[in-house]
């Protein structure tokens, strides 16, 4: 499946945030051929931005939460969403073992998402190791099995590693980038954001029990 999410997709998402629509109506409003509109909607459905029921397309709850954030921060979400969409998901027997395997591989990496949040705050353990690695280094990592269910090593291939800071002996993404990564999938990332003293996208979330 093509992994494009272009201006037409963003326009349709904007339109669906206002109200649910049929494919025909949405294609007309977007000035797109019906087949193109349908293809873009399917791509956004795969990424969890839109859903359909009873013949109507609508923005998902996640899309609504992100859209309520400031435009400056929300735009970054689309980049990390695209990068993580290409991730290689492996199963190596737990996130601690995954971190050991990655550290001993000799490959340069930058920890991301909930793994970076754990290194920075120690508040919530990660469910997996998320790390940016150079695409050309992927095959040098002594990998486990391709994950069938939940992976514990998630490698995000990039051309060059993102900006990083050293924390507790690990290279981790900058706080600013981490904030965007955590907001992109909401969920327990909201709790990490609270532990980092960040402002999450507006939501009904109760985070007052997080000890800072």
């Amino acid at each position, binding site marked *: 499946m093509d992994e494009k999410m272009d201006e037409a997709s963003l326009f349709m998402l904007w339109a669906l945030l206002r109200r649910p629509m049929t494919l025909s109506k949405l294609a007309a409003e977007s000035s797109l051929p019906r087949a193109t509109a349908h293809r873009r909607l399917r791509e956004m*459905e*795969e990424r*969890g931005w839109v*859903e359909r029921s009873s013949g109507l397309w609508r923005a*998902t*709850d*996640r*899309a609504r*939460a992100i859209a309520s954030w400031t435009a400056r921060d929300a735009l970054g979400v689309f980049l990390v969403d695209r990068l*993580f969409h290409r*991730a290689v*998901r492996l199963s190596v027997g*737990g*996130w601690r073992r995954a971190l050991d395997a990655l550290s001993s591989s000799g490959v340069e990496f930058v920890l991301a*998402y*909930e793994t970076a949040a754990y290194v920075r705050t*120690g*508040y*919530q*353990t*990660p*469910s*997996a190791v*998320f790390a940016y690695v150079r695409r050309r280094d992927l095959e040098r990592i002594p990998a486990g099995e*391709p*994950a*069938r*269910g*939940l*992976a*514990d090593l*998630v490698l995000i291939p990039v051309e060059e590693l993102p900006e990083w800071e050293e924390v507790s002996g690990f290279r981790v993404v900058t706080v600013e980038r981490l904030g965007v990564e955590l907001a992109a*999938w*909401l*969920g*327990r*990332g*909201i*709790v990490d954001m609270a532990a980092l003293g960040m402002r*999450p996208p507006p*939501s*009904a*979330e*109760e985070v007052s*029990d997080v*000890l800072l």
Partner: protein
Amino acid sequence: MSCFEDFVEAASRSGARYALLGAWAVAAVVSFRTTHDVDVAVERADLWRLRAELEPLGYVLVENPRLGKLEFKHRERGDIDVYTESVSGVPVGLILERAVEAEVSGRRVSVASPEDLLLMKAAAGRERDMADAAAILAAAGERLDWEYMARASSELGIPLRDFLLRSLSRLPIQVSNPPKVRKALKGLVEEKLG
């Protein structure tokens, strides 16, 4: 020692009947995220036996009437939040009755059943609850007692179906082939909960 280990040992010594809740109970179903704090359902009658075990370790028991819970607080080891009446509208008696044995962090413990966890999470409905629910569905969707969940959610007035469908947009990133998993789980929820 962490408050998780402190609690498990205190419960074992005192013979208190309990069920772990929250992230530690999710960890019994799927390897997911845990915090150093512990949430637990306990019979009121056992609270004082636990207190006798935990206070000598430096825990102080305080009441949090706003959130309807008691808290054993410790400066370094974290907090143990105790529910003795209900959790998000689900009665503690029901949670304890359906609690299951599981191994968590290398220890044999009693945890709330995954079905009751989903009911509690649906009633609370926060971001972290959706993420936990999606992880549970991805790991154990077919194995859940859907008949019980349909009946209990109706009796307790918990909007379980809508919550679970919303939760699917919080499917963990590390799930292999998320679109396929999301579609399958959507079908499962709609089939089982109407």
